[in-house]
Every structure is written in structure tokens, then in C-alpha cells.
């Protein structure tokens, strides 16, 4: 009943703080309370944003960031789901992997970055490895917890119908755990987005993170905002895309609040 007008109100209320921030930002810049070298006007940032997004050089940087992001995230999804399922399926794997994960999960993976640089070099490989190291844990944990929580009677129904152990794992346990697995993947996706940017800031010769550091070194304040806004929008876009895929995959599942 209240759906239409309700949604409109929600959107309006939600736009409020963002408009407020941009407004205050505009006033600060326009009145000269903040010098442009410290805080450029929002209009200047927006103009630069549009200019950069149509510049092939900038898009190339964005492309290398995306390439590392997807490579790392892809490996993390495959490894995380495979290990997570194995933890539930095999008592032996579970007993080995669970304490390892318990020890490694709270370790700040970014600290491993120097080790990746030393063993894999300064190129893409070390950055992708860092993304994998960071993104794999939420996916692995969500998969292990999700598959362990599957109602055993679902698996029994499949086994009684003649499904082998592996068949049952792949056609029943994993799909039944899909809501949890996808939640883990979404967390992993945002983490990938963040980590790839940070790795590029620490050492890189290309990518969005590198652009931010390069702008900071030459005190080009406007150019510092552009990659930050790009990565934020990229994150929102990827998240929205992921949610669309998720809705399709979970068509039969009862609604969950997320």
C-alpha cells in the first residue's frame, strides 16, 4: 500500500546527508574558507571527473585496477568455495583447515604484501596474491558455515533418490548453502575492491591507487579526489551488479533481510 510514496521518502531522506555534505563542501570552497589547494570546489572535482572518464590514459589505469581485482576475486571465489565445501564434506580436511583458518583469519593480510613483493615481484602477481589472501577468508568461512548448516533432511532426500555423496554435495548441499556463499562472496568483492586500491597505492606504476599517490606527491588535490570517487562508484556498481546476479540465483529462496 505505502510502497510507492514510501520508497520516494526513503530515497529523499537518504539523499539528504549526501546533499548536505556536498553543500557544506561547496560553501567551504566558494567562500574561500578552505583554499583550493586543500579542498577544491565540488564543481572542479566533477568537471575533472568527467574529463578523466573520457580520457583513454585514465581508463587504462582503471582497466589495470579492474583486471587485478577480477583476477584476485575470481581465484578467491574458486578457492574459497572449494575449500569451504571440503571442510564440511571431509572430517579430515575440516580438522586440518579449521585451526589454520582460525590462526590466519585475524592476521592483517596487508602485512604479507612485502612478502608477496619479494617472492612474486612488483608486478600484477603480488597484487593479485594480496587480493586473494584478503578475499578468500570471508568466502571460505561463509561457505563452510553455510554448507554445515544445510538441513540434513535435504541431503537425505537426495541420497534416497539415488544421488551419490559427491552428487549430493554438488547438486544439493552447495545450492542449499548458496545464500550464505553469496553473502561471503559479496564481502569478498568489496574487500577485493579496497585491497587492490591499497596495493596500488603502496607500490605501483599504474592503476587508480597509483594515480592517487602520484597526485598527492605533486599536490594536485583535484586529482586526488578523482580516483577515490571512481573506486567508490566502482564499488557501488559492482555491488549492484552482484545483487542482480544474486537475485536471479536465489529466485526460489525465501526473502532474507540484508
Amino acid at each position, binding site marked *: 500500500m505505502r510502497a510507492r510514496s514510501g520508497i520516494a521518502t526513503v530515497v529523499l531522506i537518504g539523499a539528504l*546527508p549526501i546533499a548536505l555534505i556536498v553543500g557544506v563542501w561547496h560553501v567551504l570552497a566558494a567562500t574561500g574558507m578552505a583554499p583550493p589547494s586543500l579542498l577544491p570546489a565540488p564543481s572542479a572535482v566533477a568537471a575533472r571527473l568527467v574529463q578523466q572518464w573520457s580520457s583513454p590514459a585514465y581508463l587504462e589505469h582503471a582497466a589495470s585496477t579492474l583486471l587485478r581485482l577480477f583476477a584476485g576475486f575470481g581465484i578467491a571465489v574458486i578457492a574459497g568455495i572449494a575449500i569451504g565445501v571440503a571442510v564440511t564434506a571431509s572430517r579430515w580436511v575440516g580438522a586440518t583447515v579449521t*585451526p589454520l583458518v*582460525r590462526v590466519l583469519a585475524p592476521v592483517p593480510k596487508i602485512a604479507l604484501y*612485502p612478502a608477496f613483493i619479494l617472492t612474486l615481484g612488483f608486478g600484477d602477481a603480488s597484487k593479485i596474491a594480496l587480493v586473494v589472501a584478503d578475499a578468500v577468508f570471508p568466502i571460505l568461512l561463509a561457505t563452510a558455515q553455510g554448507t554445515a548448516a544445510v538441513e540434513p533432511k535435504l541431503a537425505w532426500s537426495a541420497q534416497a533418490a539415488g544421488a551419490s555423496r559427491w552428487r549430493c554435495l554438488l547438486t544439493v548441499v552447495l545450492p542449499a548453502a548458496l545464500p550464505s556463499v553469496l553473502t561471503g562472496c559479496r564481502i569478498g568483492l568489496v574487500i577485493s575492491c579496497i585491497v587492490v586500491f*591499497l596495493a596500488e597505492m*603502496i607500490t605501483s606504476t599504474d592503476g587508480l591507487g597509483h594515480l592517487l599517490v602520484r597526485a598527492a606527491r605533486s599536490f594536485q588535490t583535484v586529482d586526488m579526489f578523482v580516483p577515490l570517487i571512481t573506486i567508490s562508484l566502482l564499488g557501488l556498481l559492482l555491488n549492484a551488479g552482484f545483487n542482480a546476479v544474486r537475485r536471479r540465483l536465489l529466485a526460489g529462496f525465501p526473502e532474507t533481510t540484508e
Partner: protein
Amino acid sequence: MTRPVSALAAVIAAAGLLAAWELAAWLAGIDGFPPASRALAQIPRILTDGEALLDIAASVQRMAVGFVLGVAAAVPIGLTMGRSRHVAAFFNPLLMMIYPVPKAALMPIIMLWLGVGDASKTLVIFLGVTLPVIYHSYQGSRAVEQKMLWSAAAMGMGGLSRLVRIVLPAALPEILVGCRTGLVLALITMVTSEMIARQAGLGNILFNALDMAQYDTVYAMIVIVGVLGFVLDAAFERLRARLVAWAAPSHAIIAGTT
């Protein structure tokens, strides 16, 4: 993965990791990947070096301040969001936009405004902590039984007192899950921001050693940061378990990154 891991299993896992590292390093035989024994031998030297110790202490202090301030700001916001649809609608889109932005990446801009001192680093840690704590407080507060609040209102409790005396304790288990994620994030943000600012602290020592090709020290620092992460997480988990012994155990996915 749903059962807690015994301390013995964690110790065995850690020992296994070190043994695997030692073996892999001997097999690889490259400068950039020293065996565990050589890296571990450096730890006493680092931890008895007064200057390094002071650096680490300063890092940890900034982390603690950022964490406490972050929790203090985030819990009230999250709790009110959970009880009021309008407040939730106000904050949600803003938080969604901030979510994929790497907080440590704000370091160059914040340094421009606040200088390279403690204030910038603490602010970045604060930002890193708030998001997960807000999110979990929000979820916890939203899940509080409406009928519990009706009973409280019938007893004559006002709005604020209901929030503090009913919603806060009821949402505490979930809030503490957020704090646990926040704590890991505080450490990660701290290390990362120091890697980017390259001025003082753990992250700086790590990269200075990398620059000077002191590979044993690099790996020793990685171990120190890793152990710090594990110990902080384990200590907090213990505190959490004691504070909310009445609640069902939670198996939150530790999703940590800035």
C-alpha cells in the same frame, strides 16, 4: 567450522605453518624468502630495540584511541538506526557509498588537512572502525523484539531509557561482533596507513626494512603484526564470550580490511 578451535589445535596449526614456511624457503632458496628460523631470530633484536619499541607502542596507542572513539560514535548511531526507519533511511545510502572506499586511502588527503601527526592517523583508524560497528549495532538493534519494548513502555520507560536499558543490552552480542571486526580493522588500517604515509610505526619499519633489503627483518615484522592480530582477536573474543555468556554463540564472518 562452527565449533570453536581448541588452543592446542591453534598452536599445532601455527607450528605447522612455520614448518611449511621453513621447508618452502629451503626449497625455493631465494634471497627474498628467508626460512622461518632466520626471520624468527630477528624478533628478539627488534623487540629489544628501544626506538622500534617506542614506534610500535605509539602505533598501538593510536589504534586504541581510534578504536575507542570509533565504537563510542558508532554504537549510538547504529542503535538509533535500528529503531527508527527514518534514521536508517538517512544514513544507509551514505554508508553504502563510504563502504567500498579504502579508508587508509584517505590518508594523503587527510594528511593535507591535519598534517602527518597522530591526528591524521587516528582519524583514519576511527573511520575504519565505525562502519562495521554501525552495521552490526544496526542489525542487533533492529532484531530486538518489538514486544519487549512494548512491555518496557507499559512500565513507563521513556524513549531514551528504552534505548539504553533495553535495546543496548539486547543488541550487545551483535554489537560485540561488530567490535571484533572493528578491532581487526583498526589494526589493518593502522598498518596500511603507516605503509602509505611512511613516516613512523609498524608499517613504516616494515617497508624501511624492505627498502634496505633486510629481508629477515621484513619477515620478522610480518610475524609480529600477524601475532598482534591473532592475540588482539583472541583476547577480544574471550572478553566477548564473558560479557555475553547468556547469548547463543555467534559465528560471525570476520571480514577485515580497510
